[in-house]
């Protein structure tokens, strides 16, 4: 079964990094993950409206054209079961006040932590 995920970040460095971590996860296990990327809120909303249901999303909270929360709201409107992680320099600012997110990831991204959290988000074994 192919899982479909959306990652949103305004730094291409991060998008590439996240894609590579997810790719390494695909290589390791019996899971196939299709990754869509978006650089801002507008692009992300377009992807959500155009594409089929996403299994998971990792969204940078601080985007040039708005907050990651706007993306999460839209995603959950389309599909309540989409698992969503917020990516931010300051997760403690969001952790207690946000019902939109399943997980809060700290920037800068550390590959092993990201991998572990991503597995948790997609409910993957191991």
């Amino acid at each position, binding site marked *: 079964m192919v899982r479909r995920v959306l990652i949103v970040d305004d730094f291409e460095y*991060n998008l590439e990094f996240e894609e590579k971590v997810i790719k*390494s996860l695909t290589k390791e296990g019996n899971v196939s993950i299709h990754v869509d990327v978006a650089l801002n809120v507008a692009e992300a909303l377009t992807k959500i409206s155009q594409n089929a249901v996403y299994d998971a999303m990792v969204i940078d909270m601080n985007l040039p054209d708005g907050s990651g929360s706007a993306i999460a709201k839209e995603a959950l409107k389309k599909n309540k079961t989409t698992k969503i992680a917020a990516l931010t*320099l300051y997760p403690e600012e969001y952790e207690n006040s946000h019902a939109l997110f399943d997980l809060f990831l700290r920037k*800068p991204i550390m*590959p092993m932590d990201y991998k572990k959290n991503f597995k948790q988000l997609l409910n993957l074994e191991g």
Partner: protein
Amino acid sequence: MKKPVEILHVLHHDSCSSALDYAALMELLQRNFFQTDPEHIRFSILFIEFYGFNQFYGYNENLLERDQLLISKIGKKLSSALTENDMLVRVGDYQYIVVQADIPERVSSELARQIMHLFSEPCMINGDMFYIYTSIGISFYPDEGTDLYALIKVAENKMKKVQKNGKNLISTVQDSSILLTERQMELKQALPAAIENGEIYFLYQAQYSQVHQRFTGAEMLARWKHPAYGEISPEIFIPLAEQNGMIASLSIKTLVAASKAFIVLDHAHIDDFSLSVNISPVFLLTAHFYKTLQFLLQEYELNERNLHFEITEEMLLEHTDYLLDILHKIKNLGICIEVDDFGTGYTSIRQLADLPIDILKIDKSFIQGIDTDKKKHDLLKAIVSMAEALNMKVIAEGIEKQEEATVLQQFAPLTIQGYLYAKPVQLEALVEKIQKLSAGNGNTL
């Protein structure tokens, strides 16, 4: 310095309330050093908490044994900062109270700074490196109260307050003096965003091989251009990054930048060119280091590249089995290991021979003035001979004068890094310089 009055156990072990037995503590205070008239009693209370040990470690190890060793090490280290007039009480797993009697306020602040300094170095336990953060709050009798319970609470609250503001801080009542300057604190807090948004960038200082008569590599040097303060020296921000754990992210960013630089060099047809990356011991000795490295090598296709890691000679002094193991693993991945600032530490020949080292980078203090200082000349000659015997290459750092380069040529053809041949420059300028030299138009900068 005589030993302090030391009570290295938890006074009152109440796991539910973590409450201190204040009556017992007061009794100890009276008995141990309050000989003077109660009206003239002056003392200060330092409430110290150590934390941050698990930052880089998983939880599947033998925590009990590790914690016991860590607590024992902390206790010994803490005692070494105190005198017989001080009293040390362990009041929680990693919480201590120091009581200093009959001393002026600044002396307590000084002691707090001294303790902070003592714990600025990581602790090694069974080959694992533990970075310990320290927060200290200080209260004063009788200025802030005459009730012992209240005074301890004041000191504890201050400790908690500074802990919220950042790690490794001290707070006293009167002047809120802190160990780190406000600027350093600000920089430390700004580091994650700086790594994230590209304020930290890399320069490349080329290395010239006298054997090949061309540039054969470059060292990558991290730089930080702060939007308000301009260029921040790596001597300032690297230690800050090591303190708050950002060094791992910074190292990862450097390796990713190296992968991009190799692609640029490939496109410019610059082959057989190495990039040297400084690897902090704090990153190297973390539990995830090797897996992270494997990930970067595979996903960023660094495997086949001429990647060199620079580690400091100082680090070799922590000559543990774990370090040896990780260095061998790095070498087995095809990465060349360089010892940076060689000559500034005290590595023995025996140690060097046991380690999988490929290159010695001789510190500039041995090079500068080599044309006029006979002692330096002879010393360098000996180092080069030793390196040859150990089958290691040598890079001479900090060459600024032609006379120094000329003297170096007499020893053996070496690789040279210094302003005489190349200053640290952006990648584009590096490529241009290499191409100019290979086209026969090259000259030293």
